[in-house]
Each structure stands twice: as structure tokens, then as C-alpha cells.
């Protein structure tokens, strides 16, 4: 009998044991990764500067340089603000944007085609479907990222407004042994 994994998911007060729901099922797929040692969390935000806009009717291109052997296991997405063509603030929602993530090494995309932003968004408190999707959105299976460990991200704007958003990609990457002999042979 394996011991229960103690990590941030264990402490998630919103995580109820409802085995038929998506979140516990997807979390179960991460069991090996959670039980392995010497991995550390690494979260990337796209775009790097949240003041960088996704222009109207345009697609924003970005590339993440992750570590070789890293696993992409979850994501979060949210729009921040938007301005209309005459530069006045307007309301925006995640469904105004479309998201695609592609492993540059294998060329395999995360989604079959661009995924609507609202599908990548956690349903936060105050929204109509609050609680229907837990934070973060988990992949059905963690995605191994191989050398050169580049991940291409595309965010497409399908409105006439300039939109600011943030995609949070959650990785875990292997920690390599600190090779002190190689780094400072005189000290060892």
C-alpha cells in the first residue's frame, strides 16, 4: 500500500474525493510524477510582460524555454483588461481569445486546434459556473518536454479590441545534482 502523497494538492481544501470527476481522475494520472523525487515546480507566464497586448484580429506568438525532461502538467488562463479601437476600456472575457500550445521538439500540439480561452480558464468565485473547473486545469496526462525543451504558445484575438491576458503554464522540472567537484574542485 502506497502512502498518500503529501503535496499542495493534498492541502487543497476544495479538492473533495469525488472519484468520477475530472480533477481527481487527472490528478490520479499525475501520481507517478507526484511520487518521484528531485523535481521542482516551475511556472511560466505568457506573455512575459502582462502589459503586452494581443492585438485585434491578430495572433500573439511566444516561446518558452523550459528544461529538458520537464513535465507540463497544468495551466490557467485569464484575460485582464481590454481597450476598444478608440482606446476606451471595454469589458472582456476569456472566450475572446483562443489558445494553442505546441511542443516544439515533437510538433505535437496540446489541443487539436486552437482552444477557446474560456475552456482554459478556471471558473472563479462570482462566475456563473463557479467551481465547475478547479484550479489549475490539469492535463489528462502530464506532457514530457524533450530537448530543446521549447514550447510554442499562440494566443489569438478574435475581436476588434486590444486584449491583455495571462496564460500560466505549470511545469515540473528535474533538479540536477549540484556537482560541486565540477564547479569548485578546490573546495571538495
Amino acid at each position, binding site marked *: 500500500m502506497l502512502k498518500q502523497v503529501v503535496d499542495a494538492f493534498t492541502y487543497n481544501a476544495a479538492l473533495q474525493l469525488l472519484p468520477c470527476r475530472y480533477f481527481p481522475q487527472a490528478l490520479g494520472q499525475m501520481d507517478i510524477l507526484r*511520487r518521484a523525487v528531485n523535481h521542482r515546480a516551475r511556472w511560466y507566464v505568457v506573455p512575459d510582460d502582462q502589459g503586452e497586448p494581443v492585438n485585434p484580429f491578430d495572433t500573439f506568438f511566444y516561446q518558452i524555454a523550459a528544461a529538458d525532461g520537464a513535465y507540463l502538467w497544468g495551466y490557467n488562463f485569464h484575460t485582464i483588461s481590454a481597450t476598444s479601437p478608440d482606446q476606451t476600456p471595454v469589458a472582456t472575457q476569456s472566450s475572446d481569445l*483562443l489558445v494553442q500550445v505546441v511542443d516544439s521538439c515533437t510538433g505535437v500540439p496540446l489541443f487539436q486546434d486552437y482552444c477557446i480561452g474560456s475552456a482554459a480558464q478556471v471558473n472563479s468565485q462570482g462566475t456563473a459556473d463557479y467551481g465547475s473547473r478547479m484550479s489549475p486545469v490539469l492535463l489528462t496526462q502530464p506532457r514530457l518536454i524533450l530537448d530543446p525543451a521549447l514550447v510554442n504558445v499562440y494566443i489569438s484575438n478574435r475581436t476588434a479590441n486590444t486584449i491583455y491576458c495571462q496564460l500560466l503554464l505549470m511545469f515540473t522540472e*528535474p533538479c540536477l545534482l549540484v556537482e560541486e567537484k565540477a564547479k569548485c574542485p578546490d573546495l571538495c
Partner: protein
Amino acid sequence: MPRPLLTPKLTNYSADLYSGLMWGQDGPQGTPVPRNLLQRVWPPNEFNWMLMQEYALWMEIVRCGGLANLCPGHRYPEPPWVKQPLQGQRYSKISSIPLPAASGTDVQVLSFQVPVGHDGVIISNVNLWTGTGFVEGGGDLTWRVQINRRYAKDYGAINTTLGSLTTPYAINSGAIRLQSGQIVRYLVNHAATSALVGGRIVCALFGWFYPR
């Protein structure tokens, strides 16, 4: 050169090998023991082995040329999105509508679906208005190439005439790639402030489909 996932020396570690060693001393086989907690490395467990097996499997797939080489499907000697393959089918989608009302809404001029099981490319396009008085870039007319619900990169807000009835515009000497089942639309937006009247909007897309 790919970096090893874990130092190979670690693979022989077990917890009892640490016994009797002080922090900062050399561990077995010359591997240094961490000097402090920030440098600690736990001995890999069986789950690390499973991850390493997956890593090795994917490295083997990459070594064999990637998934595209291993999975069933067509093999093209040259990228089919660059040069039309023998199995490729050329298409020419041309359509026109009367100038829509100046409402500022997108109106569809042309639409087609990529055949299932085929991918494709758009290699050239045409968008123009046959009337007179249109100021290029003036904003009265805006054309958009839409693929499913997104807009093709740099073709989401075209406010100039591209190509002509006899000579299409080559898309940046490249192509816009299409996937099986995608719906491609050519839209035009007639600005609400426009004074244009009469004439027809003409849109065309050219390229080829090829089986996967």
C-alpha cells in the same frame, strides 16, 4: 547534446549509502553530498525510474525521426505545404457579393471546409472592390481571413486591396497552413462611416489540399 535527466552516478544510490557521511563530504563514487538543505538531492525512487523510462522511450522516438516518421500516413519527399505533392489537389475558391450595407459588421464573402483527412495550404489570395472611390488603407473596407474562429496571422484586418482579378497576391511568398476539417471564411467589413456605394466585393483563395 541532450542533458541527462539525472546524473548516472545517482542511479546506484540507496539511502544507506549516506550513513556515516557528513554534509559536504564526498559521497560514494565521488558524488558530493549536499552541503546544505538547499542542495539536497534525494535518492531516486522507483517512480523516477518510470519517468526515466518514459524519457528514454521518447528519446528513441526522436532518434527515429519523431512521431511523424513512426506513425502511419503519407511520406512526402518534400514538405507538402511548400511544394504541391503528386497526391495534392489544387483548389481555387472565388466568390463575390454586392457591396454590403455600411453597418460595420463582418459579412461573409467566401467559405469552404478543408476536406476531412486532408491538410492544405493557402498560397495566394485576392480581395478587392470593383467600385470607384475606395481609398487604400482608409478603413472603409476591411477584409479578414478566418480559420475556424481565429484569424490568420496578419490577415485579420486587411484594409488594402490585395491582388487583382488576373493576378492573385502571393501570401508573403509562403503559405497559410490548413488542417483537416477547418472552415475557412473570407469576410468583409464595410465601416458604418463609409460613403462607398455600388460595386461588388470579390474575394478568392488559392492553394492545394493533400492527404495526410
